[in-house]
């Protein structure tokens, strides 16, 4: 009977994804366990802060002040650039929203299944976290929320083997999909044709297609491009920008409704496609089809890349 019950559970969880409420309810049971694990870290942090000397605090304060000043200067520049960008986009008749609502969350120091790249953050449904929400750190995109419990939620990293993220080469605008490889410092770009313009050092940013990730955030840098004349696609490998195994503070983003880059194109195709997190490798292949509709302004080879990606 229990065998049947667990089989039913697995099928429902995997195929139909309708156990979210059960999982959220049960995660309430698990939350105290996670808190207990957190406790030593929290206590030592607290002691470290309350016992540090005045001089040390002052030094830290000074360095933070200078850092803030420098960032303020950069922000000024950013503000003017943003204004200019919006003005230019107005000229081009398209709208673009730069600011998004963000929330800072902290990782909980619990280890999950070592073969899955997942993390637990200390914010949940009570902070309006929802499954599918993008997760960033200071350097780039980290992943997205998969299960949101009341107080904590689980996120999958972009390097997990079941994760695919729509990206764009910043230099050329070439659009493609970056798949997780299962190694924490490696993303694979399997759908780039041999004649595409891509080289090591290229920055990959989110393209915003798929409606899951807001456009324009850095994802990875290309580290190796290998052309094999016998194969249809080049083998391209990239390293994530985000410090996936080091960050402690993460940002949760609420992408605005109007964050798509080209509002004049038919957006429904891209918005209904939500296959950013997929449970199997086969489903990962289904992600690209929504792209060709949107390839109007992209270089011609993007279209071939996305078409060929469909099995």
């Amino acid at each position, binding site marked *: 009977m*229990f*065998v049947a*019950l*667990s*089989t*039913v*559970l*697995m099928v*429902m*969880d*995997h195929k139909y994804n309708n*156990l979210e409420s*059960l*999982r959220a309810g*049960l*995660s309430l*049971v*698990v939350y105290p*366990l*996670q808190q*207990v*694990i957190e406790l030593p870290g929290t206590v030592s942090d607290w002691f470290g802060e309350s016992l540090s000397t005045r001089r040390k605090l002052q030094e830290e304060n000074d360095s933070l002040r200078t850092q803030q000043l420098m960032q303020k200067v950069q922000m000024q520049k950013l503000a003017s650039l943003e204004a200019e960008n919006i003005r230019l986009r107005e000229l081009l008749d398209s709208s673009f929203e730069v600011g998004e609502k963000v929330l800072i969350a902290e990782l909980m*120091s*619990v*280890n*999950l*299944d*070592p*073969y*899955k790249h*997942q993390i*637990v953050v200390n914010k949940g449904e009570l902070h309006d976290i929802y499954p599918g929400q993008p997760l960033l750190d200071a350097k780039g995109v980290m992943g997205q929320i998969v*299960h949101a419990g009341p107080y904590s939620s*689980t996120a999958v990293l972009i390097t997990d*083997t*079941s994760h695919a993220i729509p990206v764009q080469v910043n230099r050329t605008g070439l659009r493609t999909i970056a798949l997780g490889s*299962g190694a924490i410092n490696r993303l694979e770009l399997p759908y780039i044709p041999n004649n595409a313009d891509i080289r090591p050092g290229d920055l990959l940013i989110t393209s915003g297609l798929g409606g899951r990730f807001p456009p324009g955030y850095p994802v990875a840098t290309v580290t190796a491009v290998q052309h094999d004349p016998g194969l249809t696609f080049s083998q391209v490998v990239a390293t994530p920008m985000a410090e996936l*195994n080091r960050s402690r503070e993460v940002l949760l983003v609420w992408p605005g409704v109007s964050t798509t880059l080209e509002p004049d194109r038919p957006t429904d195709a891209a918005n209904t496609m939500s296959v950013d997190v997929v*449970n*199997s*490798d*086969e*489903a990962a292949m289904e992600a690209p089809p929504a792209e060709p509709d949107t390839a109007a302004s992209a270089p011609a080879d993007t279209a071939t890349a996305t078409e060929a990606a469909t099995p």
Partner: protein
Amino acid sequence: MNLARHHGGGIIVITFIIALLLTIVPLPDWARYARPDWVGLVLIYWCLALPDRVGVSTGWFSGLLVDLVTGTILGQHALSLTIVAYITLRLHQRIRLFPLLQQAFTVMVLLILHQLLALWISRIIGRPGAPWYFWTPSLLGLALWPAVYFLLRNIRHRFRVR
């Protein structure tokens, strides 16, 4: 569960909770893949010691909790721990009489079965296969079984769990 006859159910629950905590306590990177299967070991011990109290349903619930804390698909550990508990219950009279070393090897086989089921399930839902070090938890289970056995037996005698 007839509470008048039984005694010390809380201790059993506490050992399971500690096993669950050990399942998610952060380990350094080099030890990430070599985390012993604490819940499996504790479950096998209690199934051997108190087969009339701890059994298939305990296995299922503890497995479900493992699924929750480790973020695997719901039901994966529940299924495999159910089967481990069932086999242990069927064989408990024999395993109890084994010398400790032989007992440890039996436990390793049970843990390997547990991992094998987990591997099958993750292959079915399309996750990649496992490297050789996937099996280290079972080997560690072999090494740790005597310690777990004596520790839990002491606990059981001290608190007169029956």
